[in-house]
């Protein structure tokens, strides 16, 4: 297990390095132009142009910029925005707290919905609830996040407002105070809609995956044995079936946690939340390369960490993998 962990850790580091380099190459081989961002259409004297280039280090050859970029990165300095000279670190901190809260609640809702729907539809297979669940989870795959976000705003914001059903109005501002970092201090309703929108897309997919995986496991001999031994249904379901059925589901959950970023960007845009996603979208639009690159590093590292955890948790759920890796090394 130890060698396996170290090996996977090194692999992740290489992947992060490669991905960040790829992004760097995209932005700085064909550099975004900080000068036109500052001056607009005005023509500036050559001296000022040179000064700006020097300030951002763009007068140096690309490879020097690249090494300098990594040097700064190791010191925790992500550089400065082309647009307003704010440090990328500050911009990042502002957005990160909002995004982290949104993702936390989104991922939590996702897990609860997926487990509940997946388990019930597998246990009560063929029931009305199961069939509704199946139709719903296929249907939701065709709905882009920004559409479901706007639809949620209409159904739980505009409509209740027009009908004066205030209890149903969940379209409230994002909370301003938080307890322990993640529990909304005021207007908890403001969290529900965005988090549900984040959760629901992949929750449906994971639930379906869990359902089919459970149904396959249930045909296994050891499940029949467990029942024959006289174990309670609850024990068989949770101890024998669920644990084995989770292996393929964990992979899907991992990929969905990486994809959740794309979901979060759209959700933040739709609900006008000042998160990392909106920042990155706005910065991309204004070609503010340092900000996009800085935020990209955070997102990529997050993805790599999730991948690593997924792989390591395989070894915990499925003992065979542990043994295999021992046999190889």
């Amino acid at each position, binding site marked *: 297990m130890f060698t396996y962990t170290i090996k996977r850790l090194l692999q992740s580091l290489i992947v992060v390095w490669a991905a960040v380099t790829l*992004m760097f190459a*995209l932005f700085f081989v064909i550099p975004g132009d900080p000068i036109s961002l500052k001056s607009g259409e005005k023509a500036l004297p050559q001296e000022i142009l040179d000064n700006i280039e020097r300030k951002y280090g763009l007068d140096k050859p690309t490879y020097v910029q690249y090494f300098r970029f990594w040097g700064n990165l190791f010191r925790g300095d992500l550089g400065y925005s082309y647009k307003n000279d704010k440090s990328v670190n500050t911009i990042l901190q502002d957005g990160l707290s909002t995004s982290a809260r949104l993702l936390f609640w989104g991922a939590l809702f996702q897990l609860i919905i997926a487990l509940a729907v997946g388990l019930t539809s597998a246990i009560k297979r063929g029931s009305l609830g199961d069939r509704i669940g199946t139709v719903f989870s296929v249907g939701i795959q065709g709905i*882009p996040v*920004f559409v479901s976000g706007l639809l949620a705003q209409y159904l739980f914001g505009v409509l209740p407002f027009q009908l004066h059903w205030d209890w149903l109005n969940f379209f409230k501002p994002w909370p301003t105070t938080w307890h322990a970092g993640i529990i909304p201090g005021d207007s908890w309703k403001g969290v529900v809609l965005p988090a549900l929108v984040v959760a629901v897309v992949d929750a449906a997919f994971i639930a379906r995956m869990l359902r089919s995986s459970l149904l396959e496991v249930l045909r296994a001999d050891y499940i029949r044995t467990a029942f024959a031994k006289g174990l309670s249904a609850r024990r068989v379901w949770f101890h024998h079936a669920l644990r084995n059925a989770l292996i393929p589901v964990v992979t899907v959950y991992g990929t969905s946690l990486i994809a959740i970023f794309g979901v979060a*960007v759209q959700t933040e845009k739709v609900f006008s939340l000042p998160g990392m996603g909106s920042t990155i*979208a706005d910065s991309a639009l204004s070609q503010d390369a340092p900000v996009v690159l800085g935020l990209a590093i955070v*997102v990529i590292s997050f993805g*790599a960490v999730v991948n690593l955890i997924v792989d390591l948790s395989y070894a915990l759920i499925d003992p065979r993998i542990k043994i295999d890796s021992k046999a190889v090394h």
Partner: protein
Amino acid sequence: MSEIEQIPQSLSYWQDVRKRFFGNKISIVGLVMLVFLILAGIIGPFISGWKYDDLGPDILVGPGSNGHWLGTDDLGRDIFTRVTFGIRLSLTVALVVTAISVFVGVALGGIAGYFGGWVDTIISRFIDTWQVIPFVLIGFAIITVFGSSFWVIVAALVFTGWYSTTRLFRASVMQVKSLDYVEAARATGATTKRIILRHIGPNAIPPIIVVLAFSVAGAILSESVYAFLGVGFREPTPSLGVMISSSRNYLTDKPFVFFIPGSILVLLTLSIVLIGDGLRDALDPKLRGVK
């Protein structure tokens, strides 16, 4: 007499696939929806009597007024024309993107899966790297640097889609490669070319067809997401994502401006997803004969 009728007809694999696909009500619903939308996309812009960027005096009028079948948007443009044009645009982009992604996937995935070894390692590690970058980010980066013309958007979508087709085809080839009949063909002295074209290829194709369907749906979704976020097609191009994005301000008073392009986009992707689902079941040889 009745005895003869009871003997089950023997069907080839593809006959069976066709039978099972058309026997599936849900995939038929998807197919009918898609055909209807495609026809609307082809014919719509010709019969509406407006151009998609015609600015008119009727601003935000409801469906059916002044000859605008589905009303007009905030600039007085005919929504029917724009929506049908949007279907055309979405499908064109998605088909081009899918064709390129599948081509890349079949080539790279096939090479990695068949030859294995260091070629496979390089391609697989590259996929690993690519996978940790969320698709929105790839699009942002490419469109930030190269602007947002048709081919840049296509390229961005291919860059977000190529690795899943590659990974899938690689896995599929690897699985088929180790089957007994491929070993047998090799043992009888078949050439590599013959093994790939005659033995592995045809058996690796069914999963590709399913991926094709989901890839088209995925490309339509991604294109609309880029457009919605402002990094894809821009006004006045009638992309469904652009239309939905500019409808946001009118959600309260004129919700139809959102609901028309929104539901068309959902129906379009949904119909393809339903077809893909039906194809997956129909093409799965393990489900042959299962009712």
